[in-house]
Protein backbone atom coordinates (compact mmCIF):
# COMPACT_ATOMS: atom_id res chain seq x y z
CA UNK A 1 0.00 0.00 0.00
CA UNK A 2 1.46 3.40 -1.03
CA UNK A 3 1.55 6.62 1.02
CA UNK A 4 -1.77 8.36 1.50
CA UNK A 5 -2.27 11.39 -0.72
CA UNK A 6 -3.39 14.36 1.38
CA UNK A 7 -2.65 17.35 -0.80
CA UNK A 8 -1.95 18.49 -4.34
CA UNK A 9 1.76 18.67 -3.39
CA UNK A 10 1.75 14.97 -2.45
CA UNK A 11 0.16 14.17 -5.78
CA UNK A 12 2.67 16.29 -7.70
CA UNK A 13 5.56 14.64 -5.87
CA UNK A 14 4.29 11.21 -6.90
CA UNK A 15 3.84 12.41 -10.49
CA UNK A 16 7.37 13.85 -10.63
CA UNK A 17 8.86 10.69 -9.15
CA UNK A 18 7.06 8.48 -11.64
CA UNK A 19 8.00 10.75 -14.54
CA UNK A 20 11.65 10.70 -13.47
CA UNK A 21 11.66 6.90 -13.41
CA UNK A 22 9.99 6.78 -16.78
CA UNK A 23 12.40 9.31 -18.28
CA UNK A 24 15.38 7.30 -17.05
CA UNK A 25 14.04 4.12 -18.55
CA UNK A 26 12.82 5.59 -21.83
CA UNK A 27 15.65 8.00 -22.58
CA UNK A 28 18.26 5.23 -22.51
CA UNK A 29 16.38 3.46 -25.28
CA UNK A 30 14.15 4.64 -28.03
CA UNK A 31 10.84 3.07 -27.16
CA UNK A 32 9.04 1.27 -24.42
CA UNK A 33 6.78 -1.68 -25.15
CA UNK A 34 4.62 -3.15 -22.40
CA UNK A 35 2.79 -6.44 -22.77
CA UNK A 36 -0.15 -6.71 -20.38
CA UNK A 37 0.13 -10.05 -18.64
CA UNK A 38 -2.71 -10.13 -16.15
CA UNK A 39 -4.79 -13.30 -15.88
CA UNK A 40 -7.06 -11.98 -18.64
CA UNK A 41 -4.11 -11.23 -20.95
CA UNK A 42 -2.49 -14.61 -20.36
CA UNK A 43 -5.75 -16.45 -21.01
CA UNK A 44 -6.23 -14.50 -24.25
CA UNK A 45 -2.73 -15.18 -25.65
CA UNK A 46 -0.33 -12.57 -24.20
CA UNK A 47 2.50 -15.11 -23.95
CA UNK A 48 2.50 -15.69 -27.72
CA UNK A 49 2.32 -11.92 -28.31
CA UNK A 50 5.32 -11.30 -26.03
CA UNK A 51 7.40 -14.06 -27.62
CA UNK A 52 6.47 -12.85 -31.13
CA UNK A 53 7.58 -9.30 -30.26
CA UNK A 54 10.85 -10.54 -28.73
CA UNK A 55 11.71 -12.70 -31.71
CA UNK A 56 10.72 -10.05 -34.27
CA UNK A 57 12.85 -7.45 -32.46
CA UNK A 58 15.83 -9.79 -32.38
CA UNK A 59 19.03 -8.95 -30.53
CA UNK A 60 19.58 -5.71 -32.42
CA UNK A 61 16.06 -4.35 -32.06
CA UNK A 62 15.98 -5.30 -28.38
CA UNK A 63 18.87 -2.99 -27.59
CA UNK A 64 16.80 -0.02 -28.81
CA UNK A 65 13.54 -0.98 -27.11
CA UNK A 66 12.60 -1.55 -23.50
CA UNK A 67 10.36 -4.62 -23.52
CA UNK A 68 8.52 -5.14 -20.27
CA UNK A 69 5.51 -6.84 -18.73
CA UNK A 70 2.73 -5.41 -16.64
CA UNK A 71 -0.60 -6.52 -15.25
CA UNK A 72 -4.12 -6.01 -16.54
CA UNK A 73 -4.74 -2.60 -18.10
CA UNK A 74 -8.45 -2.67 -17.26
CA UNK A 75 -9.75 -3.52 -20.73
CA UNK A 76 -9.96 -7.29 -20.34
CA UNK A 77 -12.16 -7.78 -23.42
CA UNK A 78 -9.47 -6.20 -25.63
CA UNK A 79 -6.71 -8.57 -24.53
CA UNK A 80 -4.07 -9.46 -25.55
CA UNK A 81 -2.98 -5.83 -25.34
CA UNK A 82 0.27 -3.94 -25.59
CA UNK A 83 1.15 -0.33 -24.81
CA UNK A 84 3.82 1.39 -26.89
CA UNK A 85 5.39 4.62 -25.63
CA UNK A 86 7.49 6.35 -28.26
CA UNK A 87 10.50 8.64 -27.87
CA UNK A 88 8.37 11.73 -27.36
CA UNK A 89 6.29 10.02 -24.66
CA UNK A 90 3.15 9.50 -26.76
CA UNK A 91 1.25 6.40 -25.71
CA UNK A 92 -0.36 3.95 -28.15
CA UNK A 93 -2.59 1.09 -27.03
CA UNK A 94 -3.04 -1.92 -29.26
CA UNK A 95 -5.62 -4.61 -28.57
CA UNK A 96 -7.00 -7.98 -29.67
CA UNK A 97 -3.57 -9.02 -30.87
CA UNK A 98 -2.03 -12.29 -31.93
CA UNK A 99 1.50 -13.24 -32.94
CA UNK A 100 1.15 -12.03 -36.54
CA UNK A 101 -0.39 -8.68 -35.57
CA UNK A 102 2.28 -8.17 -32.91
CA UNK A 103 5.02 -8.80 -35.50
CA UNK A 104 3.39 -6.25 -37.80
CA UNK A 105 3.43 -3.64 -35.00
CA UNK A 106 7.12 -4.35 -34.38
CA UNK A 107 8.02 -3.90 -38.07
CA UNK A 108 5.78 -0.93 -38.81
CA UNK A 109 5.65 1.04 -35.58
CA UNK A 110 8.38 0.01 -33.16
CA UNK A 111 11.14 -0.26 -35.74
CA UNK A 112 9.54 1.71 -38.60
CA UNK A 113 8.02 4.60 -36.66
CA UNK A 114 4.57 4.34 -38.30
CA UNK A 115 1.72 3.47 -35.89
CA UNK A 116 -0.62 0.74 -37.16
CA UNK A 117 -3.95 2.57 -37.07
CA UNK A 118 -6.09 -0.50 -37.77
CA UNK A 119 -4.93 -2.24 -34.59
CA UNK A 120 -5.12 0.71 -32.20
CA UNK A 121 -7.76 0.72 -29.46
CA UNK A 122 -10.12 3.63 -29.96
Amino acid sequence: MGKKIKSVEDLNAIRDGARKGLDLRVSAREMQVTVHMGTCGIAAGAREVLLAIASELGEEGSSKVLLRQAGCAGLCDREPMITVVDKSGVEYRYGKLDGAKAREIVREHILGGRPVAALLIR
Partner: protein
Amino acid sequence: MRDLSLHILDLIENSIRAGASIISISVSQDPARDLMEISVEDNGRGLSVPTDVATDPFYTTKEGKRVGLGLSLLREAAERAGGKLTTGKSELGGAAVVATMRLSHLDRSPLGDLAATISSIVCTRPELDLRCRLLNGKRERVVRVSDESRRLGAGERCGLTLARIVAERIREGIAGMGFVE
Protein backbone atom coordinates in the same frame (compact mmCIF):
# COMPACT_ATOMS: atom_id res chain seq x y z
CA MET B 1 -6.93 -21.03 -19.26
CA ARG B 2 -6.12 -23.45 -22.03
CA ASP B 3 -3.44 -25.43 -20.21
CA LEU B 4 -1.35 -25.69 -17.05
CA SER B 5 1.64 -23.83 -18.47
CA LEU B 6 -0.56 -20.72 -18.69
CA HIS B 7 -1.66 -21.15 -15.06
CA ILE B 8 2.04 -21.40 -14.15
CA LEU B 9 2.73 -18.16 -16.05
CA ASP B 10 -0.09 -16.50 -14.13
CA LEU B 11 1.37 -17.71 -10.80
CA ILE B 12 4.83 -16.42 -11.78
CA GLU B 13 3.29 -13.01 -12.57
CA ASN B 14 1.76 -13.06 -9.06
CA SER B 15 5.21 -13.80 -7.60
CA ILE B 16 6.78 -10.94 -9.54
CA ARG B 17 4.07 -8.58 -8.35
CA ALA B 18 4.80 -9.75 -4.79
CA GLY B 19 8.37 -8.52 -5.22
CA ALA B 20 10.02 -11.94 -5.54
CA SER B 21 13.58 -12.30 -6.82
CA ILE B 22 13.63 -16.10 -6.49
CA ILE B 23 10.84 -18.15 -8.04
CA SER B 24 10.85 -21.92 -7.95
CA ILE B 25 8.55 -23.84 -10.29
CA SER B 26 7.98 -27.55 -10.03
CA VAL B 27 6.08 -29.92 -12.32
CA SER B 28 5.85 -33.53 -11.31
CA GLN B 29 4.04 -36.59 -12.55
CA ASP B 30 3.79 -39.82 -10.60
CA PRO B 31 2.01 -42.48 -12.66
CA ALA B 32 2.24 -45.03 -9.82
CA ARG B 33 0.09 -42.77 -7.62
CA ASP B 34 -1.88 -41.34 -10.56
CA LEU B 35 -0.79 -37.87 -9.44
CA MET B 36 0.23 -34.68 -11.18
CA GLU B 37 1.41 -31.74 -9.13
CA ILE B 38 2.43 -28.24 -10.11
CA SER B 39 3.81 -25.74 -7.66
CA VAL B 40 5.18 -22.21 -7.68
CA GLU B 41 7.05 -20.84 -4.65
CA ASP B 42 8.85 -17.56 -4.14
CA ASN B 43 10.60 -15.23 -1.72
CA GLY B 44 8.10 -12.41 -2.17
CA ARG B 45 5.74 -10.79 0.32
CA GLY B 46 3.71 -13.97 0.74
CA LEU B 47 -0.03 -14.53 1.08
CA SER B 48 -1.64 -13.10 4.19
CA VAL B 49 -4.94 -14.95 3.81
CA PRO B 50 -5.98 -18.62 3.93
CA THR B 51 -6.51 -20.64 0.74
CA ASP B 52 -10.30 -20.31 0.68
CA VAL B 53 -10.02 -16.50 0.74
CA ALA B 54 -7.14 -16.37 -1.77
CA THR B 55 -9.10 -18.50 -4.23
CA ASP B 56 -12.28 -16.47 -3.90
CA PRO B 57 -12.75 -14.81 -7.32
CA PHE B 58 -13.89 -11.64 -5.55
CA TYR B 59 -10.71 -11.40 -3.46
CA THR B 60 -7.82 -9.34 -4.82
CA THR B 61 -4.87 -7.43 -3.36
CA LYS B 62 -4.87 -4.97 -6.25
CA GLU B 63 -6.14 -1.49 -5.56
CA GLY B 64 -9.05 -0.40 -7.69
CA LYS B 65 -10.02 -3.95 -8.71
CA ARG B 66 -12.92 -6.06 -7.57
CA VAL B 67 -11.99 -9.45 -8.95
CA GLY B 68 -8.94 -11.70 -8.82
CA LEU B 69 -9.46 -14.71 -11.04
CA GLY B 70 -6.03 -16.34 -11.29
CA LEU B 71 -6.03 -18.60 -8.24
CA SER B 72 -9.75 -19.35 -8.48
CA LEU B 73 -9.33 -20.59 -12.06
CA LEU B 74 -6.45 -22.85 -11.03
CA ARG B 75 -8.45 -24.21 -8.10
CA GLU B 76 -11.27 -24.96 -10.48
CA ALA B 77 -8.89 -26.75 -12.89
CA ALA B 78 -7.44 -28.82 -10.01
CA GLU B 79 -10.80 -29.78 -8.53
CA ARG B 80 -12.20 -30.62 -11.95
CA ALA B 81 -9.44 -33.24 -12.24
CA GLY B 82 -9.96 -34.78 -8.80
CA GLY B 83 -7.32 -32.68 -7.06
CA LYS B 84 -7.05 -29.54 -4.99
CA LEU B 85 -5.23 -26.27 -4.63
CA THR B 86 -3.38 -25.31 -1.48
CA THR B 87 -1.58 -22.10 -0.63
CA GLY B 88 0.82 -21.48 2.19
CA LYS B 89 4.26 -20.28 3.16
CA SER B 90 7.32 -21.28 1.18
CA GLU B 91 10.71 -22.18 2.64
CA LEU B 92 12.01 -19.45 0.32
CA GLY B 93 10.19 -16.94 2.54
CA GLY B 94 7.22 -16.03 0.35
CA ALA B 95 4.13 -17.80 -0.92
CA ALA B 96 3.75 -21.40 -2.03
CA VAL B 97 0.92 -22.44 -4.36
CA VAL B 98 0.47 -26.15 -5.00
CA ALA B 99 -2.11 -27.70 -7.33
CA THR B 100 -2.63 -31.44 -7.50
CA MET B 101 -4.61 -33.40 -10.05
CA ARG B 102 -5.26 -37.01 -10.94
CA LEU B 103 -2.80 -37.64 -13.77
CA SER B 104 -5.15 -39.89 -15.75
CA HIS B 105 -8.29 -37.81 -15.15
CA LEU B 106 -10.16 -37.12 -18.38
CA ASP B 107 -10.71 -33.50 -17.40
CA ARG B 108 -7.10 -32.79 -16.38
CA SER B 109 -5.72 -29.84 -18.35
CA PRO B 110 -2.68 -30.66 -20.49
CA LEU B 111 0.70 -29.30 -19.39
CA GLY B 112 1.08 -27.14 -22.52
CA ASP B 113 4.24 -25.28 -23.48
CA LEU B 114 6.18 -24.84 -20.24
CA ALA B 115 9.30 -23.75 -22.16
CA ALA B 116 7.35 -20.84 -23.69
CA THR B 117 6.09 -19.83 -20.25
CA ILE B 118 9.55 -19.73 -18.70
CA SER B 119 11.21 -18.06 -21.69
CA SER B 120 8.52 -15.37 -21.85
CA ILE B 121 9.53 -14.36 -18.33
CA VAL B 122 13.26 -14.63 -18.98
CA CYS B 123 13.22 -12.37 -22.04
CA THR B 124 11.94 -9.41 -20.01
CA ARG B 125 13.29 -10.33 -16.55
CA PRO B 126 16.61 -12.13 -17.12
CA GLU B 127 17.86 -11.12 -13.67
CA LEU B 128 15.26 -13.22 -11.81
CA ASP B 129 16.50 -16.40 -10.15
CA LEU B 130 14.03 -18.78 -11.81
CA ARG B 131 14.33 -22.47 -10.98
CA CYS B 132 12.35 -25.07 -12.85
CA ARG B 133 12.23 -28.60 -11.45
CA LEU B 134 10.80 -31.49 -13.44
CA LEU B 135 10.03 -34.81 -11.77
CA ASN B 136 8.69 -38.12 -12.98
CA GLY B 137 8.93 -40.87 -10.41
CA LYS B 138 12.68 -41.08 -9.74
CA ARG B 139 13.71 -39.06 -12.77
CA GLU B 140 14.53 -35.45 -11.95
CA ARG B 141 15.84 -32.48 -13.89
CA VAL B 142 16.43 -28.95 -12.64
CA VAL B 143 16.95 -25.98 -14.95
CA ARG B 144 18.20 -22.80 -13.28
CA VAL B 145 18.20 -19.56 -15.24
CA SER B 146 21.12 -18.20 -13.19
CA ASP B 147 23.28 -21.22 -14.15
CA GLU B 148 22.54 -20.74 -17.84
CA SER B 149 23.16 -17.01 -17.49
CA ARG B 150 26.61 -17.65 -15.94
CA ARG B 151 27.48 -20.10 -18.69
CA LEU B 152 26.50 -17.52 -21.29
CA GLY B 153 28.86 -14.96 -19.78
CA ALA B 154 28.97 -11.19 -19.84
CA GLY B 155 28.70 -10.93 -23.62
CA GLU B 156 24.93 -11.28 -23.32
CA ARG B 157 23.27 -7.95 -24.07
CA CYS B 158 19.67 -8.80 -23.36
CA GLY B 159 17.50 -11.64 -22.22
CA LEU B 160 16.67 -12.98 -25.68
CA THR B 161 19.53 -15.43 -26.10
CA LEU B 162 19.18 -16.51 -22.50
CA ALA B 163 15.44 -17.06 -22.99
CA ARG B 164 16.12 -19.21 -26.06
CA ILE B 165 18.69 -21.36 -24.23
CA VAL B 166 16.48 -21.81 -21.16
CA ALA B 167 13.58 -22.83 -23.43
CA GLU B 168 15.81 -25.46 -25.07
CA ARG B 169 16.92 -26.83 -21.69
CA ILE B 170 13.34 -27.14 -20.53
CA ARG B 171 12.26 -28.81 -23.76
CA GLU B 172 15.13 -31.31 -23.42
CA GLY B 173 14.20 -31.86 -19.78
CA ILE B 174 10.55 -32.52 -20.57
CA ALA B 175 11.46 -34.86 -23.45
CA GLY B 176 13.72 -36.80 -21.05
CA MET B 177 11.02 -37.05 -18.40
CA GLY B 178 8.60 -39.05 -20.49
CA PHE B 179 5.72 -36.90 -19.28
CA VAL B 180 2.23 -37.65 -20.49
CA GLU B 181 0.80 -34.49 -22.01
